[in-house]
């Protein structure tokens, strides 16, 4: 499996990433892309921006380890992960996962598996800044942990 991981402040371009992955993957019949975007209205007060922190070095190697687990479970041809950090505005893409495989089922399963990991286990921390000037670090959600249990 071709694997490429970026943790970066820069925005990503879905078409560029998908075309590159498809080229690397050779004869892939299926590409699944997940794009996570910053939601502007999750609670009662609208979000002004999000700040994402991570643990440089550890984040990349942990994502690579989990992508390796996915490759052991499903027949994958290529995987690309882009995760943004720093300040992000509502509507902006925050995470991109691309999975290429010969057939669709492996790509769907592996993309969902990796997203469950990124949401529940990867060393990222979010601080929410609201339009009323308040801000706080986001608390971990029980529902995200539940989704991950399906794979354990």
């Amino acid at each position, binding site marked *: 499996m071709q694997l490429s991981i970026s943790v970066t402040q820069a925005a990503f371009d879905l078409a560029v990433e998908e075309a590159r992955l498809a080229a690397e993957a050779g004869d892939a019949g299926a590409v699944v892309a997940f794009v996570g975007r910053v939601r502007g209205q999750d609670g009662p007060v609208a979000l002004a921006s999000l700040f994402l922190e991570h*643990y440089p070095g*550890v984040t990349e190697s942990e994502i690579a380890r989990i992508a390796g687990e996915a490759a052991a479970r499903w027949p994958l041809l290529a995987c690309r992960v882009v995760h943004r950090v720093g300040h992000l505005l509502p509507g902006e893409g925050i995470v991109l996962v691309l999975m290429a495989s010969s057939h669709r089922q492996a790509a769907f399963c592996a993309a969902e598996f990796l997203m469950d990991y990124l949401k529940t*286990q*990867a*060393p*990222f*921390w979010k601080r929410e800044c609201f339009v009323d000037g308040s801000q706080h*670090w*986001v608390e971990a959600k029980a529902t995200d942990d539940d989704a991950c249990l399906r794979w354990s």
Partner: protein
Amino acid sequence: MILVRYFGVLKDKLGLEQERLDWPGGTTRDLLTLLRARGGDWEQGLAPGQVFRLVVNQAIVRGDAEIPADAEVGILPPVTGG
């Protein structure tokens, strides 16, 4: 000496990003015991439910693990990313 790094909400709760500590040797559990003994925000901020995982020299630790001299130790609050 070891370097201890704090992330996310822990940085705010503890009021620092990182610190250097004299290290007589021991495990990750020993380090947490030592830090919690500072009381107050340390005891609360590093209570078991507040600590997600420890990282020793860039490798995530599962369970208790030895901390070598000159190690970098990361203390991770529950993650919320993605």
